[in-house]
């Protein structure tokens, strides 16, 4: 009996060994997205965060691969403590109250870099934020969707007074209900400063898409609780771009605008766009 059992065990182990072959999944090349919804990646980062350059690189890759369809805002909050605090030789302190309010609103991550992709909670996620290795799939999913709203930004910037006039136009592509909000943020590129990368410190790291300020409230301004399909909503904003030594360089500034809809179980970004408002001509 015992010998039979042992024999059966060996035979089963032999049979199981045939199951070790599998047909692996294919990795197809990137294709043009089927939808017209753009994607906003809101990344939380820090100058003392060794893995944060991984997040920056992934954002750059996604922006390159889906040019004009993927936009990003990189934020340095206070909540991530020492990881986002400037080092002794840092030129700038990138932390802002806006970043703090937004990370508080989206939920604190267990580590950074972490980002929200269109503020959507994807299957298998416990919150809105995820690590860089999950962004590509989420971006792909969102790009294949049809936008429920269109967003148009028109800007007029006066270099002398540094005054920025903004006209916002939202057109509902379907019936929208909830707490609709418009968000307008100023981001800055080409900020060269120290950054920890893995176990190294890079003295001249180029920080891009850094959140400088919000023209609207940090969590957006109310649009309306209901917009019918085809209905248009407009509003004008005025913002004076601060003048500070070394940064707030008009050539490097962009205006990012997005519309979100807050319902009981969602904070989803419906559409996003970006404009460079400084025109040297």
């Amino acid at each position, binding site marked *: 009996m015992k010998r039979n059992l042992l024999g059966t065990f060996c035979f089963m182990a032999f049979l199981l060994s045939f199951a070790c072959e599998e047909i692996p999944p294919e990795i197809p090349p990137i294709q043009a997205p089927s939808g017209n919804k753009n994607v906003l990646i809101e990344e939380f980062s820090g100058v*003392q965060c060794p*893995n944060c350059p991984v997040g920056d690189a992934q954002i750059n890759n996604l922006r390159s691969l889906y040019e004009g369809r993927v936009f990003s805002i990189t934020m340095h909050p206070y909540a991530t403590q020492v990881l986002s605090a400037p080092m002794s030789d840092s030129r700038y302190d990138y932390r802002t109250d806006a970043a703090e309010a937004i990370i508080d609103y989206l939920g604190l991550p267990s580590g950074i870099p972490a980002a929200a992709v269109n503020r959507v909670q994807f299957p298998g996620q416990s919150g809105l934020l995820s690590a860089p290795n999950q962004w590509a799939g989420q971006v792909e999913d969102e790009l294949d969707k049809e936008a429920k709203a269109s967003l148009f930004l028109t800007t007029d910037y006066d270099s002398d007074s540094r005054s920025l006039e903004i006209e916002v136009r939202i057109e509902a592509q379907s019936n929208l209900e909830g707490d609709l909000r418009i968000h307008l943020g100023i981001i800055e590129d080409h900020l060269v400063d120290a950054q920890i990368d893995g176990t190294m410190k890079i003295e001249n790291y180029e920080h891009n898409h850094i959140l400088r300020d919000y023209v609207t409230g940090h969590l957006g301004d109310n649009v309306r609780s209901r917009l019918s399909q085809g209905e248009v909503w407009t509003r004008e904003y005025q913002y004076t771009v601060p003048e500070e030594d070394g940064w707030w360089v008009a050539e490097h500034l962009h205006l990012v605008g997005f519309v979100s809809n807050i319902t009981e179980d969602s904070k989803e970004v419906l559409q996003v766009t970006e404009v460079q408002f400084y025109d040297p001509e």
Partner: protein
Amino acid sequence: MRSNIIFVIGFSCVLAFGVQGQNGGNYFSGSLEANGNAFIRDARIGAANTPQYDHQLYGADAWFDMRYTQAGFNVGFRFDVFNNSNLLNPLDSYTGEGIGMWYINKEIDKLDVTVGYIYDQIGSGMMFRSYEVRPLLIDNALIGLKLEYELFPNWRIKAFTGRQKQQFDTYRPVVVGGSFEGFVSGGGGDKTYWSLSPGIGMVNRTLDDATVNNLVSDLRTYTPVDSVGVNYNTYAFNAFNTLSVGRFTWYAEAAYKSTELFFDPFAEKTNWDGSTSLGKYLSSDGHLLYSSLSYASGGLGITLDLRQMNNFEFRISPFSQQLQGLMNFIPPLARQNTFRLNARYNAVPQFLGENAVQLDVNYSLSRNLNVSFNGSLINDLDNNPLYREMYFDVAYKKPRSYTLTSGLQMQLYNQRVYELKGDAGAVQTITPFVDFLYKFSRRHALRVEAQYMYTGSDWTGEVKGGDVYREFGDWMFLQAEYSIAPHWTIFASDMYNVVPEKTEDIHYYSFGFAYSKGANRIGLSWVKQVEGVVCTGGVCRLEPAFNGVRLNVNANF
């Protein structure tokens, strides 16, 4: 929630039936562990900017276990409560409650059947272990089925399958595994001179479609030079044995993990714009080799441990991070220190590559005098130093009067690697310590411990360029604990940054008391704690500073 209610009603019915039919051999047992925290903001030490410090102010965690045995059935469940808890993510707040564990177990002849939440391991657990570490909120039980069969006396075969627990949900990948373990011994007459406990094991993890699709989406963004494939299945195999001959015991284990995708934060990746960055997926197999040889005779005990790991990070999903989704248990190969300053720097196991050796010697010179030594050396696979520790202590005990323990610990701790703090370096410490326990009477005793951590040395001579990293600077710790048996313990301690490097000089003081009566214990303390790597049960995590009041309640029945 509905399933929880159904389960509790079902469990209550089983209990009611059991109580009515009690005829000996059936019994209840259980326990309660409850912790309450009041968070008091102190931005100076970094106890700030989390929901608990900013607006929640209070939090609690509790586990209530109940087990019942009757007529060969073993059943149990555990109710878990997390309110504004900082255990899952020390930087955020987690709230949830429900049935955290249940199981039904029955032995049918030689077949042992368990369904529900399964805690088990194969070999030492370094290839596969499902376990719970409450202070770090690790609970990676498998939810599924386990069968164990006694093929011959002392020879058992085990098979299990399930999905790993994720708080009150489950991860989607499926785990299948099994082992074959036994025991043989021999010798002359009635005496056993040698014994063997050999075993082999296997675990398979199959990724779900959603996880693979996510991976594929990410890998599609890789440039051709970094392109890698992905598999649904990963296999791990191990063989292990404990050989005991006379006064020697030798445990050896070898484990192999088949090719799988894993994220290496230090691998160089080429981006589409031609730039490079660190961190990408790699596909490779991995292995772990471990040996532990011990000798024990009279008052002498010697243990020599050796371990090599290469690409042996084994998680339920490539997306799992930090302490989440671990499928195995690999403790640090270094001394588990208990004194506050001696335990400040811990050698977190480097799953992707490490060579480690540890020697532990304990010798009793007489009934009253004991000396012990521990040395550990851990390098990465390129032989760069990660951790060094030399520990020596002498303990003298005067019966019914006092016990004095004193010694010295020296460490090198590569903080840049262990805590991924790129601005850090290798901290080297020299820490003398003393622990004195004085018994005034059979009921009254005073215990005082003191340590001083000096961080300015280069005792190993291994720090390149002589750049000694001091992190926070020098520390001093003093604690006094007065106990009145059998009920009361009162303590007060202070950890002081004597020569501060990072912050102003701050006293991290704590004080409190504990009251025990029978199977109940209540503790209340004020705690101010510096940030650092905390290791519990061999698992480590970087914990932020804490400031506030802690209440602990424990009960067993």
